[in-house]
């Protein structure tokens, strides 16, 4: 954990009496490395450390009795403060309210669609799952089986055109008495212009109140470029981080929020449909710090 990895440096500090500017910089270097090892993006780390340095200098850490402990607390509080701005509820507007899940290949969208449907059912919403991925082998069948497991509605596509599915499904959902539609989309690269255009068309016809970027919690440095591109093109309304039941430190959370400023609404913590939970900034902060 962070206390142990910094203890060497901070133990030296204790015997010093007064820290120098150089001592502080060495401590900040340790923090920088810890954040990089946690997969926080290089530029995000730079910006974060500068913010911490300002707070540290303001707090007279150079004269503190236990400067190591103080700086760790400053870092933790700063992380929680930043990530805290990332916490928000799902927003429903329209009848039916449409939620669209989008993101890279394999990030967990289809599974998350089922988790979200079950989660909303417990909140007394009547949800229909819409399989708009008509390309991946077995994708429609995968969502169909998930809809059965979750005990929610399922839209049977009569076309393999994702834009047509996005356009028709909410109308059918309305007629059948659903108040919520969750559209699962094909995984796509942020640099695939054709597929990004397709997503824009789907958004235009489905008019979702939530465009949720589903990202793998283990994503590395590329998290910034990926999230930024999705956000700049589609103006996402929130993020869902998946596979946080592993031991990845989850620095992608800080990277994605820093660059998009869009809230992290939910966290995926396993393969079962019940494995979804609220985003707790302090839990993610201590995880990133290791």
């Amino acid at each position, binding site marked *: 954990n962070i206390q142990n990895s910094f203890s060497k440096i901070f133990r030296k500090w204790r015997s010093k009496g007064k820290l120098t500017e150089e001592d502080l910089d060495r401590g900040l270097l340790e923090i920088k*490395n810890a954040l*990089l*090892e*946690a*997969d926080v*993006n*290089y530029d995000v780390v730079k910006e974060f450390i500068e913010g911490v340095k300002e707070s540290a200098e303001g707090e007279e850490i150079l004269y503190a009795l236990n400067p190591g402990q103080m700086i760790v607390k400053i870092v933790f509080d700063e992380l929680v403060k930043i990530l805290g701005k990332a916490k928000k509820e799902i927003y429903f507007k329209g009848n039916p309210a449409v939620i669209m899940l989008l993101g*890279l*290949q*394999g*990030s*967990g969208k*289809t*599974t998350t669609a089922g988790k979200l449907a079950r989660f909303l059912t417990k909140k007394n919403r009547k949800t229909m799952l819409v399989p708009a991925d008509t*390309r*991946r*082998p*077995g*994708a429609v*069948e*995968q969502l*169909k*089986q*998930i809809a059965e*497991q979750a005990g929610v509605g399922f839209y049977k596509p009569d076309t393999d055109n994702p834009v047509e599915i996005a356009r028709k499904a909410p109308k059918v959902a309305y007629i059948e008495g659903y108040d919520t539609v969750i559209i699962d989309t094909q995984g796509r*690269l*942020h*640099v695939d212009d054709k597929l990004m255009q397709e997503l824009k068309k789907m958004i235009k016809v489905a008019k979702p109140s939530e465009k949720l970027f589903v990202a*793998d919690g*283990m*994503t*590395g*440095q*590329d998290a910034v*470029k*990926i999230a930024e591109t999705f956000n700049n093109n589609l103006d996402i309304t929130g993020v869902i981080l998946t*596979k946080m*039941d*592993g*031991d*990845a*430190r989850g*620095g*992608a959370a800080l990277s994605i929020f820093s660059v998009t400023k869009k809230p992290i609404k939910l966290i995926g913590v396993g*393969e079962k449909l019940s494995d979804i939970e609220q985003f707790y900034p302090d839990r993610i902060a201590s995880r990133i710090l290791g």
Partner: protein
Amino acid sequence: LGKSIAKDKIVIEELERTLIEADFGVQITMDIIEAVKKSPDKKSAIEEIKKYLINILELPEKEERSETKPYVVMFVGVNGVGKTTTIAKMANIELKNGNDASLVAGDTFRAAAIEQLTIWSERLKIPIFKGEYGADPASIAYRAISESKGENRIILIDTAGRLHTNKNLMMEMEKIVRVLKKIDDKYPNEILIVLDASIGQNNIQQAKQFMVYVPLTGIVMTKLDGTAKGGSIFPIVRDLKIPVKYIGTGEGIDDISPFSSEEFVNTLFP
């Protein structure tokens, strides 16, 4: 008296940024910078880095394929990295090389996993062994291999995505290997871990932990058609000595290439 980049903070930071942003990770980045800090300028430092990296990637060539009939390749990895799609691509390579291939639907857990692999087997017109959802994957693999005894073909085994932190799933994977060894100690001839290039430092943990349970013989790194550089491969190859066999560059059946250390390293420093 030569000049060296060691004194040039700007060049050092630029090199550090390039490596970190490529997901190399802090430790190996420091090792690399240390190794090349005597270079006179950035250009020669990059040339030194490339040599250093190619040196890591070039492992002694394994011997020719063993003559077992069938020849068994098992695919493992965490959730969503591209195992099932990679199996289809690799089966296609075998067919193009004039070999017979069969698939084994060893993911008996995830929704529509068997249907997904079945569609690929139909597209490739090759046999597939499957069982019921919830069946023990070891028993499906055992049946597939023993029923193919003596056949001159490649059998590719798909397995469920699993996090290395899930001990039960790691033991389930270990059991598949143990059970196949009852048929022939050489089985599986290859155990390939599939790693996603967009994942960061956790790739290292994945490779290390999977290696504890099964003897990995190779790596396939997927999704290199994205913008991620896959630098996490270097600490893995350096420390675990597992060779990279193929890279995945897309979702189509032909989007796979045999790994070339020169091409890979040159892409890092265009």
